[in-house]
Every structure is written in structure tokens, then in C-alpha cells.
């Protein structure tokens, strides 16, 4: 890949991959304003702030900004995750200047008008109420509350706590915006039918007035380790399927063992065909329609979880089968073929992701956000290939102890256990 980089005077880092022959360009603007950077005790403020940023600026009201975005036919959204608030968009290459100008306006000059803050608050309250009847959302919330202690940035889902959302003020959102929505630590990645210099010039114009405020306060979060198996069942009325979240607190993306952990995740449960638990639970035993694991990347211990959709009568068997597969890894009963399959899958996916501008931008983003080095895109496949069986076993023993997990089940009542 032909990666061009540039740093603006305000610290915003820009990376571009021109792809000749394409009509459009994908844009990812990742700002270090996710849950990890949220005010302690106020889960949900980061997402509310982001939603309010899309509801008008000091130069354009909400309607005018939305009209301008749709007038260039761009697709755009702003999501808050564990690490970043990420503005993701796609436009025709010829519209990139206009798109970046609109994104910059929302990022730099949000108005936080009372009426608009109230609208996003009510939307969020309604979503939280809806999520209380959504088995996947309930399982996710329950698992986080089992595993992370009070005050931990990942104890709540990004949507936050109902009480916090109800009480949030426009001034609190402005305060979060001043502290967290800043160019230092932010990354702009563009891939597609554009020239690198065009992107550098356009981003310099659009984001010239973006400034970082006072230095960030250092944040120390105690390490989370589970001492035993924790389990909680939440009955959600009038449902037919149980959603299950089984997991552990993960490890920071900056931990040197993270790449080995990603390979371990693939060996264990990340994929139905390439992973042991996925293959056995769905393909061999037919216990679940979906089963997969994810390992989040952030500056903290993001969730490392297996998610399953299972009939209530099969929940216990699906969970015990998954843990049995994990025990085999922990006990070293994992073959070179298991490891090679996982590595091939992870490396092969990098090639296939190049089929789209959004895929190329995503390939770049992680290395740019966590400053993994200018050669990261070339180095990463080699690092995946270099992981050994011993490392996989060690990672599983350290981070995935089968007897010390969190298990949340949401859905109909489960049958009595034997």
C-alpha cells in the first residue's frame, strides 16, 4: 500500500492511501474521546457529546448542516467506542474538501443548543429503555457490571447509564468537548480515489482552527482480574432465545502481547470455521446460530468476550463446550494446524480488506491511532506469523482462565440445572 503521512500544526495526524480507479474515498477521523477518556462516574457523556455534535454548529443550525451533508451525497456517522469517538464517512473523491469542511465544523464548532441537547437526550433515554428489552444489550450490560468494578470506564456500555443521561447538561457536554475533542492524539485516515496532496491541503484548511486545550489529566485505572467464576441470569420477558456473553477483561492494545492475544482469540472462538469453539458449538453440535469472540483494542482492558445466541435448553451445554475448548488450549492441547489456520485467516483477511476504500482505511487506523510505527502495515502480517504455540497457551492461561470468567445470560427463564 502506498501510505502518505502528514502532521498538521495542531498535531492532527493525517494518513492517505490513494487508490487509482475508484470514484469515492473513505474517511475515518478517530478522536481520543471514547469511554477511556470519559469523566469518571458519568458514563454516557462521551456519546451524548458526540450525538450533540451532529445537531448544529455555531455557523450552521442542525437543518443546514444536514442539508449540506446530503447535498454532496456523503454517508457519515459518529460512533463512540472504548477508545475513540470515530467519525466515519464516504464521499465522492471530488467532494472530499466539502466533506472534511463539514466534519471539521461539527468537531470544532458544535453549538450544543439546549433544544438539540434535549433532543439527543430523549433519543438516548428511549434507546436505553428499548435496550432493556433487547436480550443482546441486556447480556452485554450485565456482563460488564459483573466484571468491571464501579468507576471503571468500561463498566457501562457506551450508551451510558440512564441516570447520567437524564441529568446531563449542555454545559457538561461543552466541558467534555473542551477536554476530549482535541487534535493531539487524533488521526485522520483517507483511502480511495484521491490524491495525497489534495487530502493534506483540504485537511489543513478544514481543521486549521482546531486547538487542544490544557494537557490531559493522567488516568490510572487499577488492573481488573477475576478471582472466580461470576454468573448472572437476566430474564427478559416474551423472548424465545437466550443471548450469552462469556468473557474476561482483556489487555491494552499497547501491550506487547496484544498480537499474540489476537491470534489466540482466533484459535479459540473468533470464527465459526477457523476457531475451535465456533466450529464445535455451531458446526459440529448445532447448538447456536451465532457464536464468535472479540478482543477489543484500547488503552485499557477492553472486553474479551464470546457471544452466542442459543435456545434456553442448550445454554448450559454451549457454555460448557466453549469452556472445554478453552481448557484444551490452556492445557496445551492445541495443534500447529490450529495455529496456522488462525494465522492464515488473520493474514488473509488483510488482503481481502483491500477490496474497498473503507477496508483499506480500517487497515490503517489501528496502527495510526496507537502509533505502532510507520512500517506497521508491513510488519503486522509478519508479527501475526511469528506467534508461537507456546505464546498462545501462555496468553490463554494469563488472560482467559477457564475457571475465572464472567457469564451473563439474557432471555427466557432457563430450565432447572441438574
Amino acid at each position, binding site marked *: 500500500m502506498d501510505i502518505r503521512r502528514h502532521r498538521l500544526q495542531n498535531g492532527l495526524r493525517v494518513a492517505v492511501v490513494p487508490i487509482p480507479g475508484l470514484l*469515492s474515498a473513505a474517511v475515518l477521523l478517530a478522536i481520543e474521546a471514547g469511554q477511556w477518556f470519559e469523566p469518571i462516574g458519568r458514563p454516557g457523556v462521551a456519546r451524548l457529546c458526540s450525538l450533540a455534535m451532529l445537531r448544529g454548529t455555531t455557523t450552521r443550525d442542525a437543518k443546514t448542516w444536514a442539508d449540506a451533508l446530503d447535498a454532496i451525497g456523503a454517508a457519515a456517522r459518529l460512533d463512540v467506542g472504548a477508545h475513540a469517538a470515530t467519525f466515519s464517512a464516504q464521499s465522492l473523491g471530488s467532494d472530499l474538501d466539502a466533506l472534511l469542511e463539514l466534519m471539521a465544523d461539527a468537531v470544532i464548532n458544535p453549538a450544543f443548543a439546549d433544544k438539540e441537547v434535549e*433532543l439527543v437526550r430523549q433519543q438516548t433515554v428511549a434507546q436505553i429503555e428499548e435496550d432493556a*428489552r433487547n436480550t443482546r444489550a441486556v447480556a452485554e450490560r450485565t456482563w460488564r457490571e459483573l466484571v468491571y468494578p464501579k468507576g471503571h470506564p468500561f463498566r457501562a456500555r457506551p450508551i451510558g447509564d440512564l441516570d447520567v443521561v437524564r441529568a446531563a447538561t449542555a454545559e457538561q457536554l461543552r466541558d467534555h468537548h473542551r477536554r476530549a475533542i482535541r487534535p493531539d492524539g487524533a488521526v485522520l485516515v483517507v483511502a480511495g480515489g484521491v490524491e495525497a496532496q489534495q487530502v493534506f491541503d483540504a485537511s489543513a484548511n478544514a481543521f486549521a482552527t482546531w486547538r487542544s486545550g490544557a494537557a490531559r489529566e493522567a488516568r490510572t485505572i487499577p488492573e481488573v482480574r477475576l478471582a472466580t467464576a461470576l454468573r448472572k441470569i437476566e430474564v427478559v420477558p*416474551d423472548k424465545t432465545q437466550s443471548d450469552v456473553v462469556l468473557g474476561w477483561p482483556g489487555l491494552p492494545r499497547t501491550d506487547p502481547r496484544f498480537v499474540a492475544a489476537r491470534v489466540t482469540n482466533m484459535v479459540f472462538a473468533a470464527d465459526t*470455521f*477457523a476457531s475451535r469453539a465456533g466450529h464445535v458449538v455451531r458446526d459440529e453440535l448445532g447448538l447456536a446460530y451465532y457464536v464468535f469472540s472479540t478482543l477489543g483494542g484500547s488503552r485499557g482492558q477492553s472486553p474479551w468476550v464470546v457471544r452466542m445466541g442459543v435456545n434456553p435448553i442448550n445454554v448450559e451445554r454451549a457454555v460448557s463446550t466453549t469452556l472445554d475448548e478453552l481448557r484444551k488450549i490452556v492445557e496445551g492441547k492445541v495443534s500447529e494446524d490450529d495455529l496456522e489456520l488462525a494465522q492464515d485467516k488473520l493474514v488473509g*483477511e488483510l488482503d481481502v480488506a483491500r477490496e*474497498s476504500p473503507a477496508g483499506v482505511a480500517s487497515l490503517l487506523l489501528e496502527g495510526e491511532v496507537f502509533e505502532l510505527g510507520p512500517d506497521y502495515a508491513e510488519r503486522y502480517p509478519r508479527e501475526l506469523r511469528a506467534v508461537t504455540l507456546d505464546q498462545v497457551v501462555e496468553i490463554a492461561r494469563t488472560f482467559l482462565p477457564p475457571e475465572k470468567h464472567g457469564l451473563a445470560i439474557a432471555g427466557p427463564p432457563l430450565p432447572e440445572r441438574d
Partner: protein
Amino acid sequence: MARLLCIPVVTDAPASRRLDNGLLMHALEARHAPVVSLWVWYQVGGRNEVPGTTGMSHFLEHMLFKGTPKHPKGDLDKLLARYGALWNAFTSEDVTCYFETVPAERYPVALDLEADRMRNALITAEETEAERNVIVSEREGLENDPSFLLGEQLQAVAFSRHPYAQGVIGSKEEIKLMTRDGLYAHYRRHYAPNNAYFIVAGDAPAEELLDRAANAFGPLDAEVPIEQPKAPEPPQYGEKRVIVRRAGGALPIIQIGHKAPRASDPRSAALSALAVALGGATAGGGEAASGRSARLYRALVDTGLATTVDASYQLMKDPYLFVAEAHLRPGVTHDRVERVILEELEKMARSALSDEEFGRVRRQMLSASAFMTDTVTWRAFRFGQLLATGAASSLGEWYERLAAVTAEDVRAVAESVFQEKGRVVGWFVPEQS
């Protein structure tokens, strides 16, 4: 107007070939990435089922992943996983479709898989039993979603004769009754080269892509041609209504469907524009920034009546539904939101969009087409969808039809579709647990 004229044009012209066994093949070059995406579209779906066998095409789709004599279960799965392939399948009312996106040098492996399972799937009794649980689990997962429950009922009420009433996944009871022999007979009848399209897009000359495909699929025998089901939906003579009451959701939902023309109808491009005007070109909840200039967003979300809105017109073989959907804010009544939606639909039928508003709609629609064709997988999918439904014979033709739509076309099609006699209204009413 200058901005409208500078939209790049999607000009893909496919290379096409028909094999002696009847398989229609089309290839598109996509040279920006070292990948190939291939799709096999079978002309079988929910429309080919009768009561007692609903869900059979979808069940069969699952069984096509269970191996052949040449490639036992797990064999090619692992191989494709090793290549990092993006691969899956789906079943709709009209078609069943299988695809693989793979590194370009692995194209022959994916071809081998698809050619082999077109005629040689094992479909054993043992695997049928194991997969039955998975499909029941899939069905139960969908039942957890109030929007699915309401949509399924809306579809069932909307069609009195056409098999579109049955949906795709089938009832849980019928899934439990499905037999191995029934599935196998369905397979042998419908999975044949003369009942399929093969589409490929990728990093090689189009003729070369077709040559390789011809080598893989050429030796397969044709099947006795299938008579497609003919159960035309009779005219509807008044609004129909359905209410779903369950404790499984917290927020009320409204879906309003109107009978709409099939994909091959000359008005299908204008209907696509109408959906963008009402619901935007991209969906996505509160985090979505685009599509907020759409009529329903302005009338329902900006005003605090709903949390999300959508408007959809699907490309289908036979006349189907244009559906508007809203998830209501707590405390807002169905009556009120239904009235607002119907008022907005009526406005669309009464007055043409202004130049400014129509410019936004057109721009979103054409940009979305370009975004789709810039991804190899979606370029191949879109092309196959246009062919399989009869909407157009190429991406370029469809793009030109979208680009030719006028504001008056949108008004006129709204007037013809948004009729009380063709309407079906569904309410999801959450009950206290």
C-alpha cells in the same frame, strides 16, 4: 445544477457468456485490489414454497455448507478460512445466493467449491438434524426482535395469494417437520446451471475470469427447466391492518406498506428515489449523520415523535411493498405517528420536490451507487441483484435509469403507489410484562 453534472458515471460493461448447460455467466473487472468476488444466484427462494414447506429454500442454503463426496464437511471451509475469504450465503423471497470474496490467486478454489456443490451436496439425515437446531435458533433470534415480528405479520397480511406472504425463514413448526428427502428433492430440482446466474468481479481480465468459470461449471448437466410459480396477487380493495402485541419490546413501532411495482417496472428507479426522499440513502440510528434531510426524519425524528425512521423499496421479481417504518418515542401514540407518515406520503404524491431538495435526493442516490461499486464484493452483488430481479441488464444501465429520474417522476410514482386501497398498516404494541 453544475454540481449534479460532475457526478462520475458508473460505466461497468460486463463480459457475458452462456454455457451449453444453460448457465448464464457475467464478469466485471475490478482492478484496484488483488481480490475476486464470485456469486452464484439460484432462482429459488420463498416464492417457490407452499404451505407445509415454508423455509425449505433457506434450510437448504444451510445444508450446502455440509460437504460433498469430493469435499467432505469442513474441508473447503477451512481452506477458505485460511485464505481470509469473505464468504456466506443468503436466501430471499426470490433467490438463494452464495458468494466468496478471496485473494485473486484463490479464485479457482472458490470456483471448485461452487461448481461442486451446485450438483453434489450430500445433505445427510444426520447433518439435517444437527442443522435443524441451528435454524430454529436463527428463527428464535429473529423472534426476539419486535421489528421482525411485525414485518413478518405485515407481509403475511399484505398478500392473500402470492407466496411472498410466507416470507423466507418459515415457521418454527414447519422447520421442525422438514425432512432430508424433501430437502434433497428441492435441491436437485432447483440447483442446476440452467436455473442460476454466475457473477464474478475481480482483478483479472473479464474474459479470463469467464474462461476459468466455464472450465469449472461447463461439465455440469442441466436439469429439467423449472416452471416458476404463478400466483399473481389479486387487486386489493381497501386498507388492511395488523396489530402485534408482545412484551418483547419497549417502544411502539409502526410499519406502513403500500403495494409497489416489481423491479422490472419502468418506475422502479423513481421508487428508489422516492425511498431516498423519505428515508435517506443510508440507515443507522442516532449515530448516523447522513439522511437527516429526508422527509420522514424531519417530520418524526426532528420533532421528537420517533427515534428512528426508514423508508424502503426493494428490488423484487414480483410486485411487493414500499414500506415506511418508525420506532416511536415513549408516550407517543401510534395514531399520531401514523397520521404524520400518511401526511408526508400524501405530500410526496401532491407536489414535486423543489430543485434543491431533488438535487440532494439525486446526489445521495447516485453517490450511494458509486460507493457500492467501489467495493468488489458489492459491485458483484449489485450486478447480480439487478439481473436476478430484472431491474437492469448492467450496472451502467441501472445507473443511467437512476440518473434520468426527475422530480415529477418521483411525484407521479408516489401518487400511483400511495393509495389507500393498496395499503397495509402494522402496529407493534408493547405489553407490560
